[in-house]
Every structure is written in C-alpha cells, then in structure tokens.
C-alpha cells in the first residue's frame, strides 16, 4: 500500500508547471477540451479493429464459454484502452451525434472509423445481444466495477426514470442535426475521469454518479445512455441472446436476485386478475390513443422549439444583441466584440437565426412525436400479458454481463 502510494505520489511531487495557460483580461475561460488530440488514420482503424476483437471475444465468452471472469477481464481492458488510453473518444455513444450531423447537416461527412464505432456494436447487438454493454463500453465497464452494493430499485422508479434515455437521445440527435452542440460529449461524466480534466461542476456530477453507482448498478447505462436506447431495440430482435441457464430452466429460483440491473424476467403463467377482456379493451384504447400521443408530442415539440433553439450560439448571440439586453456604459462582452469584428451584418445574423429556428421547429416536432410514440408504446407494452415458464433475461435491458450465469446450477450435457 505504501509502495503504491509512493509510486503514485512521487511523479506528482516531481511535476513542474512548465507552460501555464495564457491569461485573458476579458474574463474568457478556456473551455475544457471536448475532443482529444487527433490521431493518425491508421491508429483510428486500429481502434476499430480492437473494438471488433473485443466485441467478438466478449460475445464468445458470454455465449459459448459463459465465463463471468472472462467478461470481467475484458471490461478491465476496455477501461484501460478505450477509457484511459483513448480518453473515451471516439466512443459509440458520441458517434450518434456524428452520424446525425452527417445525415442532416449539409457540410459534415462522418469519418468511416466513427461510423464503424457507431454501427459495429449495433450489428453485434442485433446478432448476439448487448455484449457491447457487457464489457466493451468503457463507461459500462467502469460502472460495473464500482457497483459494490447494488440495491433493487422500485418498479415505479425504473419506469419513471426509464423515459430519460429517450429524451437524451432525441435531444442529442436534434442538437447534432442542427449543428448546435454535441450534447453527449459536453455532459459525458466519464471523460472527466479518463482525461483527469473536468470542470468543477462536472467533477461533482461524476462524484455523485460514482456514489450512486455503488448502490444503484450502472445508473448511466440504465437511466441516461442514449445509445442504450438503440441497443435496447436491436437486442429485442437479437438472433442469439445469452440465457441464464445453459440448458432447460428448472425454475429453481436461485437466479431471482442475481441481476443487479433488474433485467431478469420471472415466469408468468397466471392470467391477469383484471380479466382478458378488460386487458384487450385497454390495449385497443391505447392503440387508438397512440396517434393522439404522437400528435400531442408533435404539438408540444413545436411549442418548445424556441427554448431548445436558445442553446444555439447564433440564436444566443442574436438574443444578446437585442436592444432590451444592451445597456449603455456597460463593459462590452466578448461575444459582441467578436461579432462586430466578424464582418457579418446583423441582417445576416437574423437571417441565419431564422433558418436555425425553422430547423429547430421541424426537429422539435419530430422529437416530440418520437417521445409521444415511445410513451404510447411503453404504455401498451405494460398492458401486454407476458406468458413465461422460465427465468429469462429481458432482451432489451439485459447487459449480457454474465453475472447471473454463476447462479444457475444447471449444467449442460
């Protein structure tokens, strides 16, 4: 322990402040980097290769070898390679934004390596379930590491918080598509750890998340990760998904509390006490209400588009330049000085802002409609009667981490 401390402490003692950052009299704050230094293309393809190998290995370990230890070792490797070495970038989660921007913004081409980072886990998930989440995603792997005393969460909380990833996904796509912001990157709590470089606010958020992660396993994955939404959908239709039991389930119930993520679905043979007819009626009503939910979402999205557009820097600038917000004899803020020196007229700025707000109107409506659809489908899903005889992982929410496998006493012949 002392030896470890010395090894860690000594470099710090020897560290020298060589090149302090320049001082800005205007109060300008140097932003925390959102992207690490660019690497050569061959190295970017190397990352893709490592991703592919890691995914293949994890898939093999989960589906064939059913080895939790193997998955754990891969997760350590992922934290080291994709986390600390690659500093969390490029990541598959953030790649959503690159792809959105490429699809909807006219002047951006997504690099093939980023596209590979986006598509490869999705393809693997479609084939083999969420093996990416099991050990390859450094964020998930990190959270897995700190899940020391996981507690079961109430179903109501799971349901309530379960809407957040959809919101996050929608907003991330909206802001990336309008070239406003890379939301996922800006509010990524893990890159601060991997890069040892975060604002104080983010530092506190990370601390809170880690503390939460000790008691609530994988909080980011379950209640924030926007990529998880896509993986959830892919995994539901996966060709081969991991099973708790290697053979037939014997309903021994030993795996009931095995999953810290509440992803195990219990057998359900009894009928709904409310009655089949009532259930069907409810379903019909919800299906009929679905277009209303979607339309309601579209309408709400249209109403909030200006609020959402307010994040855009050009819109914010136009807002700052309004007469109501300018005061004589106040020191000029850097944004106005920069704008004045840009050579762009206010007329041009207004024109640009009008176009941006129009894009946001369309995007917000689509976003609202999407949330309405998700809302409606979630309600419908909760009405549907499941019939199961075995203990099975929920294909959508199971992270294929193989933690539950050790609980199953069944041995394959």
């Amino acid at each position, binding site marked *: 322990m002392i030896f470890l401390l010395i090894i860690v402490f000594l470099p710090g003692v020897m560290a020298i402040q060589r090149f302090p950052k320049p001082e800005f009299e205007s109060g300008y704050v140097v932003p925390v980097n959102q992207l690490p230094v660019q690497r050569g293309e061959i190295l970017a393809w190397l990352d893709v290769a490592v991703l592919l190998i890691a995914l293949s290995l994890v898939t093999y370990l989960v589906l064939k070898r059913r080895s939790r230890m193997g998955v754990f070792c891969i997760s350590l490797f992922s934290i080291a390679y994709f986390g600390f070495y690659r500093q969390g970038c490029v990541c598959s989660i953030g790649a959503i934004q690159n792809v959105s921007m490429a699809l909807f913004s006219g002047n951006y081409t997504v690099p093939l390596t980023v596209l590979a980072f986006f598509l490869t886990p999705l393809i693997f998930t479609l084939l083999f379930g969420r093996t990416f989440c099991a050990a390859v995603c450094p964020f998930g792997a990190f959270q897995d590491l700190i899940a020391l005393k996981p507690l079961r969460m109430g179903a109501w909380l799971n349901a309530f918080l379960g809407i957040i990833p959809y919101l996050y996904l929608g907003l991330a796509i909206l802001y990336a598509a309008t070239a406003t912001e890379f939301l996922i990157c800006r509010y990524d709590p893990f890159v601060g750890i991997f890069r040892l470089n975060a604002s104080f606010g983010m530092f506190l958020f990370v601390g809170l998340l880690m503390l939460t992660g000790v008691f609530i396993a994988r909080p980011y994955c379950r209640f924030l990760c926007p990529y998880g939404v896509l993986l959830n959908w892919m995994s539901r239709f996966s060709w081969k998904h991991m099973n708790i039991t290697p053979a037939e389930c014997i309903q021994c119930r030993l795996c009931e509390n095995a999953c810290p993520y509440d992803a195990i679905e219990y057998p359900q043979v009894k009928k709904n006490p409310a009655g089949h007819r009532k259930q069907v009626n409810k379903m019909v009503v919800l299906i009929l209400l679905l277009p209303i939910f979607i339309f309601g979402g579209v309408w709400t999205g249209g109403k*909030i588009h200006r609020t959402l557009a307010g994040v855009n820097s050009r819109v914010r600038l136009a*807002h700052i330049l309004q007469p109501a917000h300018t005061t004589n004899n*106040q020191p000029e803020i850097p944004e106005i000085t920069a704008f004045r*020196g840009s050579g762009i007229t206010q007329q041009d700025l207004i024109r640009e802002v009008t176009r941006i707000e129009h894009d946001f109107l369309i995007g917000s409506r689509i976003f609202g409609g999407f949330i309405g659809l998700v809302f409606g489908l979630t309600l419908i899903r909760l009405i549907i009667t499941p019939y199961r005889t075995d203990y099975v992982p929920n294909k959508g929410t199971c992270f294929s981490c193989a933690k539950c496998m050790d609980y199953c006493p069944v041995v394959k012949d």
Partner: protein
Amino acid sequence: MKKLIPDIILIKFLRRMSMISGFFSLLFCALICITFLQLKRTDPLHTPVSTLLQEKLIQYPSSPNLIQEIRQIDLLARKAYFTSEWQIRTGSYLLLASLLILIICLKSIELITPRIPSIQVSEQGELWNMRKVQFRWVLIAGIALVSISLTLAFFTHRMLNGIPNEGNVPELFSRSRDSLQINPVAQSPAASIISDTSRNKLRSDSGKPGGDDEYPTQQEIRLNFPSFRGPDGNGIAFQKNTPVSWDGASGKNVLWKKEIPLPGYNSPILWNDRIFLSGSNENKREVYCLDAANGKILWSADLSKIKGSPSQNPKVTAETGFAASTLTTDGIRIYAIFANGDLSALDFNGGIIWTKNLGLPNNHYGHSSSLIMYHDLLIIQYDQSGSGKVMALAGRTGDKKWETSRNVKVSWSSPVLVNTGYRTELLLSAEPYVASYDPATGKELWKLDCISGEVGPSVAYANGKVFSVNEYSKLAAISLGSIPTLAWEDNEYLSDVPSPVAVKDLLFVVTSYGVVVCYDAITGKKHWFKELDKPVYSSPIIADGKIYILDKQGTMHIFQADKTLAMVAESSLGEGSVCTPAFGNGRIYLRGNRHLFCIKK
C-alpha cells in the same frame, strides 16, 4: 491445495486497505474542493495589495522601487495561483489512485466472499401490481414532461420573442444599414407614406406633460435625409433607384433647379416632400423650405435678428462663409445654426419656435460643424479655439440637457451617431483624439489619440470600426470593444475636407485633391484608387450600392461601392459645388454655388 493466506485473513486485510484508501479518497476529495474554492476566490491580477500599489503608481509613475515592488507581488500572486492549480491536478491523480485501490479491495472482497443466493417469497400476482404501478408512473412522467415543456416554452418565449424578423430589423441594429431593404416610396405627404397604425412612436421626454411630441422611428428617419451625410451622419443613404446620369447644362434628367437667394455651403436636407437649407451673408441669415416636387420656395424664415445674436460678425473665410453648417430635422422641427452661434428651431411652416445664441465661436475659418438629432435631443459639436464642447438641447424647448467639455483644438468636423450593436455612440473628431459619447447623457465613453491638425473630415463607421482621417495626420481605423484600439493606419492618401465613408468591409477615402481610394476596412489593404484630377470638397455618399463623389466643378463621379473599381457614370451639374448631396427615392438634391438642383432618374 492449502491456500497461502487463509481467506479470512485476506478479507480482513482487504477491509483495512479499503478503509484506509476510502479515508484517503475522502481526504483528497475534500482538499481538491477546498483548493478549488480558494482558487475561485482569488484573482492573481487584482490582489488588494497590487491594486493599492497600482493606484500609487498613477501618482508616482516613474518610481522604480514601486514598479519593482508591483512586479514582485504580481509574480508571487501568479506563482501562488499556478501552484494551487498544480495542487488540484496532483490531488486528482492521488484521488484516482486511492479510489482505484478502494475498488480493487472491495471487488476482491466480493470475489472471495462466498455469496449464497436468496430466494424470496413471491407471488406471481406481484407482476400485475408492479405493472400497474409502472403504468401509473409512466403516465405521470409523460404528464410531467409535457407540463415542464410548456412551462419552459412559456417563460423563454418572452425572453426570446424580441428577436426581430428578417425584414424588420429595428433601429438599434444599425450595422445592417447598408443591406437594409427599403421599398422606394413616392414623396407624397407624410400621412400617406406611413400609416398611423404602423408607426412605432418614440415619446419625447423633454416635452410638457400632455403635450408630448411623437418622434419618428429609425425606419422613418432612413426614408428621409435629415442631416449632413445622411440619417446618422455616417455617409450612408438608404434610398433606392438613385439616378446616375444627368446633365445640368442641358437639363437632362434635371427635374428642376432653383436659385437660392443667399449663399451658403450647407448641404440640403430632406424630410418627406420638403427640402431645407440655409443661406447667409454678413447681414442676413435665412432658412428656406422648398417643395421637393417642383423646387418652389414654400417659405423662407428670416433669422437675422434673434435675441442674443452678437452684433459683430464672426471671422470666416470665403471657403466657409456664414452658413456652412447643415441643418437637421426630426420631422417635427427644423434646426439651423450659423457661423455667429445663432441657433434656431422652426416648425414645418416656417414658424420660429425658439432661438438662442451659443456665443460667438472663436473659429478662424468659421464654424461649420453640422447639427444632428438623437431622439428629441439636438446635438451640437462646438469645438473652438481654447474651448471645445459638445452639447445637447431639447428639441422642443431649446433647454440645455447636457454639455460636455472637450480638451480639443478647434475643428470643423461634424458629429456621427452610430449604433454599435451594443449601444448608440456619438462620435466626434478633433485634435488630438476621436472620442465617443453617450448621446443621451453626454458622458464620454472612450477616446483615442490618433488625429492631429485642423480636422475637417468627420469619422466613418462600419462593422465595429471607426475611421478618422486628416491631412498631415493619418488615416486611422479604430476597433471598438471594451477598450478601443488602433487596428491599422495609413498615411498615403489623406483628406482634409471630405469625410470618409465605410460600408461592410470597405472604406472609401476621397481627398480634397481628387483621389478616391477603396480600402479593406478590416486590414487596411488598398483595393483600388482612382485619380479624378479635380478637387473635391463635398463628402462622398453611398447609396443604392454606389458611391457618389461630387467634385468642386460640379461633376458627380459614381463608382460601384465594391472592392473592384467600376465606374458607373460621370454626370455634370453645370455648376460648381462644395456641398454634399442629399438623396430621396429616385432623386438626388445637389446644391451648387448658386442653385439647388433636383436630379431625377
């Protein structure tokens, strides 16, 4: 096989390790937070001690001990700041290390400790209850989401609602003036041009209660030509369809010409269908109102005998005369000033509203700074030998609203009003500086020493840069900001009379010896220049994408206001002129040495 270390001892050891590392994690975390908060509070550039010493330095600027002390304290403050930053960084590494040890210990305990699965008593009916609860909470989440969204939309809608539509950029967005599209309107009576319902009235704050004037909006001002060099005195006209070809001698495209009774070098101003100018000799001072449609003199107001007018005439030269200052109007009253300091306000029917005398100017060429309006304030630049000042009088009553002394030499330039996108500034130029004032209060906003000599040209402004020029001095480009600075300067082509004009990223300078130069306003690089071979006293005006330059012989040289030299036309007035043109829609009003001309398309 017997284990090297029994599990129980290992678990004990790991537990102790985890407690120690947990303790250190908390400690490092707390230290990082404390150091960060301390760092946030300190400003190494402005410590109390250094601020005190800097104030002392102002009193004793050349004290070497003081300078040395300031440097040392500054160095210590910076060292302390960067040491704190280093501490935070090192602390982060230590925190990470201790967390890593903690996690390894706890994970190891988890691996070693056998876990026995527990089976809870559960009923299959629980699923339906759980589903019910989930259904309810999803519903609540949906309602909450919609409510929060609509609430946010309601509150932010108010804040963001003020961003104007593309075609309706309000008055303070004056940087866009050069691309502002104004539909040409006929010069018909005021009531038919802009309906009352579309007016956005500015209330006078100098009027008596219950008798407020309704001042024109920026758009209304720009539909007219109410002061020297245009609406804000910046050399930009907003009219469209401006004529390019005429011949004064033959009358081609000359709608009318009218002899002006008394001479004067002031330029015409225009409001709706009325043109105003003044004339004066040693004994008489008059203001004329002409009908823009036919040049008929509708009225002339004799301002020769106003109260307080000095009995002696001011010293003037032949090139200035007694009526060199251009009038101004706010659409309600017309304001005129003469070389002897007589200042008058008249209504649109020629009735005298108020008069006063500002004192005989001590000006060896004769006072020639023109007037300009800012809302209901009449701004007067009154730089004389020995005492410079700028003042604002209430348009309605003539009462002085503010006066600001200027430590400048006598000048003949005129004030320019600009809206920088952040605030409106009143820009004046006289040796030794270009200065900016708040037109509402007269407070000096900034000044920059960059000009010398007998300053005749006014400044130009475009896109955050102010341009000043004077012969035997320099052409200076000042970048505005929290501290205006000199962006670039040039001294090859300098004007002593015509004012420069700027639009977007182009600056045009016309010298009095007849050279017109186009600069890149941002870098100062010359795009082109052209020798007109004729002297020019009139200031150039940019209108409808073209720059109009009237030489002393009465020839108008028209170029594209572009970075490529392209002459559009040369048209002759048939009479010499030193006055600056005024623009109406499809019209130009040119004052020659004897006549006022109206040129049509």
